[in-house]
């Protein structure tokens, strides 16, 4: 009744202004999370139960170790998708597991890490089921496939991902 004119923005009340702003920022968040602007040229095997990608770009450090490790993880029933990179004898993999196996994904991580370490002796293996690591490796795989990467750049990216895995905070 005694509405103050100062509390209006372009004729819209402050309440409606903020609610609109909230809805707008939320829809931006959702839409930006759902869209991907990166071209995906990886060789991929996508199905209802598995999502395995392979990098085959001769101008980047050899990724055959990662591709072999992915083939091995494909045989696991719990694993639905794998992303990863390797640089020399350092291998980092991220897995997505079935919804029901989310409760035991930490155990699965350890089991797969041990298995891979036994197969590839002398290789530093890291397996993570963290969604963040999966997102980062997916982005990096796309970049590796599409652009030229030298060893130093890849090592830096590897170190960043390793820091995220080791982050206990």
């Amino acid at each position: 009744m005694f509405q103050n004119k100062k509390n209006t923005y372009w004729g819209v009340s402050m309440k409606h202004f903020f609610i609109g702003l909230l809805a707008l920022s939320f829809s931006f968040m959702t839409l930006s999370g759902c869209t991907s602007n990166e071209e995906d040229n990886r060789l991929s095997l996508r199905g209802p139960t598995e999502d395995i990608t392979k990098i085959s770009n001769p101008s980047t450090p050899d990724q055959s170790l990662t591709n072999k490790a992915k083939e091995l993880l494909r045989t696991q029933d719990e694993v639905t998708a794998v992303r990863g990179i390797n640089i020399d004898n350092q291998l980092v993999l991220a897995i997505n597991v079935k919804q029901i196996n989310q409760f035991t994904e930490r155990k699965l991580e350890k089991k797969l890490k041990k298995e891979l370490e036994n197969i590839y002796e002398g290789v530093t293996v890291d397996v993570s089921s963290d969604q963040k690591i999966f997102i980062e490796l997916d982005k990096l795989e796309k970049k590796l496939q599409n652009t030229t990467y030298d060893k130093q750049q890849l090592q830096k990216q590897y170190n960043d991902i390793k820091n995220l895995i080791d982050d206990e905070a």
Partner: protein
Amino acid sequence: MTKKNNNLSKQQKEYQTFEKQRETKRPVVKNCIKAFLIGGSICTIGQAISTFYMYYFNFTEQTVGNPTVATLIFITMLLTGFGVYDHIAQVAGAGTAVPVTGFGNAVISAAIEHRTEGYVLGVGGNMFKLAGSVILFGVFSSFVIALIKTILMQWGGF
């Protein structure tokens, strides 16, 4: 219950049956469905926010909980201040009380209510009037869980 009923006088028993006949029955199933749907939507929003933080910032699944909770409470603060959250809570019931947004609403609504009593004794003193018990039992139960975990880790050989 039956023992209690035996001690009641005839008039009291009559009144009880009278009351039962006229009492509006609570639509429990309908309320549960509403709470499930709206509570679930709040959780979906929370999931979207945490995915956003993971995608664009350096948060892992372990650390993303903190900014997500802060954002949800911030949104609740605005919605409570504008009186929108109360309307949602009227429909959803437990669906809005159980997620962390319910805690935020309890803190902020108490702060708004006691604003007229001053910032220190009013807002400061009464802000955690409703949410205080949540904090108390939250801290206490986490202490008990930590104690059990420590005992199991130290002597259980896990």
